[in-house]
């Protein structure tokens, strides 16, 4: 699996100009399937290597650059509209929107569908009514789905703008309320960092941004964009670790928020698949959070497969099963067994009738 083109390209962008046309043909397909084509473009552009890419694959990279540029512009407009609607209420941007607006490395060439924000739980209903008053609408009309989000999840049901058709997810926490681990949202909000040049707009502190990204990826049941999310983590780690005390703060914070296991996975798989440089003492210390054997070995088998793009050239005989296992695990972690059984029963037998 080490010779997968998409992985070598992400690890070492400078290796791309050496590729032959047929390798480019496959790399473009793997990257498009992994939602990473615009990312490749930005890596090549930053390294000043675009001119060394043969004409045809360069066209594909340029096409996606057009989409990514427009996307970044649309995200800025949308964030301004959200701020307008919430008049003066501080908003913490999460994930993609945070990377783009804060100008962080994973924002370059990242294309995503929703804007995620974090607000205090007590203000959830006020924020919702302000958004409804400014043209956003509920996109989940089923009463059960409404209850699922409001009582059990960490966010409101997604709201969609009636004219622009953009979607916003309003979170009050970074993991579902029904999960055994729920990092303290007050602590996350208290440490959030104001964005220079904006009023009332914040992003999570560097450590928290990494931990949120990790929690999102490793407690998620469906890895549609697994490699893309791992690339986010890799880019964040490389960027923030330029500050000397970052690694210490990160492991410390993971302990405080109860996310050490999750950080273990993040460091293990960014290093394994993307060769993220992690100082040996940090790597050694996080080994304490490794799950017991044989779970650790099983997780390796599963994530090495499920984190790759779902393209025919990146799957083997066990990929399908690996994705299914992680799907079950994600759901298992999401809710206690009885609640989960009731939820799955409802989704399987009652929802389809409506």
């Amino acid at each position, binding site marked *: 699996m080490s010779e997968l083109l998409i992985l070598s390209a992400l690890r070492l962008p400078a290796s791309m100009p050496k590729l032959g046309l047929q390798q480019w043909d496959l790399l473009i397909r793997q990257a498009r399937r992994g939602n990473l084509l615009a990312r490749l473009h930005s890596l090549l552009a930053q390294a000043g290597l675009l001119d060394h890419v043969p004409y045809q*694959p360069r066209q594909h990279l340029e096409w996606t650059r057009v989409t990514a540029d427009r996307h970044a512009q649309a995200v800025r407009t949308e964030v301004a509209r959200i701020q307008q609607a919430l008049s003066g209420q501080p908003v913490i941007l999460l994930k993609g929107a945070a990377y783009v607006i804060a100008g962080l490395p994973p924002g370059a060439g990242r294309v995503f569908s929703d804007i995620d924000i974090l607000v205090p739980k007590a203000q959830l209903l006020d924020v919702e009514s302000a958004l409804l008053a400014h043209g956003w609408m509920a996109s989940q009309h089923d009463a059960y789905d409404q209850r699922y989000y409001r009582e059990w999840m960490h966010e409101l049901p997604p709201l969609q703008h009636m004219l622009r058709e953009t979607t916003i997810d309003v979170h009050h926490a970074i993991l579902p309320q029904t999960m055994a681990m729920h990092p303290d949202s007050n602590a996350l909000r208290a440490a959030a960092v104001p964005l220079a040049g904006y009023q009332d707009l914040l992003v999570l502190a560097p450590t928290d941004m990494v931990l949120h990204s990790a929690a999102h990826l490793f407690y998620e049941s469906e890895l549609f964009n697994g490699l893309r999310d791992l690339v986010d983590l890799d880019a964040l780690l490389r960027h923030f670790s330029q500050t000397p005390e970052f690694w210490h703060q990160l492991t410390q914070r993971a302990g405080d928020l109860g996310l050490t296991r999750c950080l273990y996975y993040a460091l293990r798989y960014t290093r394994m698949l993307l060769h993220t440089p992690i100082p040996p003492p940090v790597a050694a210390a996080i080994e304490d959070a490794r799950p017991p054997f044989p779970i650790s070995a099983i997780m390796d088998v599963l994530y090495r497969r499920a984190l790759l793009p779902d393209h025919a050239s990146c799957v083997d005989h066990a990929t399908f099963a690996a994705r299914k296992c992680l799907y079950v695990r994600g759901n298992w972690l999401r809710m206690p067994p009885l609640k989960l059984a009731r939820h799955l029963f409802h989704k399987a037998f009652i929802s389809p009738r409506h």
Partner: protein
Amino acid sequence: MIVSDLPSAELGTRLADPGLHLVTGQFQLCIRSPIPALAATIGLMYADYPLGNAQGFTDFHVTLEHPTGLRRWWRKQVVFEFDSALPFKPLPATQAFPMLEWGLNWCVSSYANLYLIIHAAVVEKNGFAAILPAPPGSGKSTLCAALVTRGWRLLSDELTLIRTADGRIVPLPRPVSLKNASIEIMQTYAPQAVFSPKVFDTVKGTIAHMKAPADSVARAAEDACPGWIIFPKYQAGAATSFVPISPAHGLMRLADNAFNYSSLGLQGFETVAGLIDACEVIDFTYSVIDEAIAAFDALAAEALERQTGKAS
């Protein structure tokens, strides 16, 4: 080498595995399909297209096959696969060829963002192109099919590609899609043309494709200068008439018909504006095909005169 140089058995085997590499306009495609009926229609409709280089770079790899599971035997279906993803719901197996055409249009219109892509037929004569944007049912494809059987060059039947870098039109000649009554009208009007078998009960009704003229396929690398934007409207019994449209109005109508106008942002606006400046914008009503063609020929002759007048 072109597709018809392949022995027909070879065409089927190649399509099944590893796939048929062929070139349409700027794009190299690889079509893979084990479905024999589809191979026959591809052999008919794509006979004149250059074979691609399997060792080179392919822009779009697509697969059409029967889905696995029960539907392999019962009410057979076909799925369109692109980069291991299924962007569309399955269709009845008889609709494999229209699905290939729709799927290829989707590939181009979703990704090729260095072009402004307008949902329009486009034909060329004397170096100038007439862009025919129109909603379904306006007779756009019928008019386009008729023009290309009477000396106009087919640039595209569905997707007008305007290169954003220089505003020129880049050809993508592929089979012309005809619907319902248009099929028999064209079969009578151009009995020498080659038509695919009719496919019934698609979302657009009955569909058949007319093969692109061999000359248009051979000249697919020659781009063209935009000359006219003509909004055609077939109206039974109406006299042939041209009504000029104001540039501002034309711009809005053109933008409405573009697939990627908003994803191109400022570049989209500038390309549409440049196009409007370069073209005469016209509302065109017709009922008799021969009269319509005579009117188009007159436009092309005028343009040629203007150009030679300028040159001398």
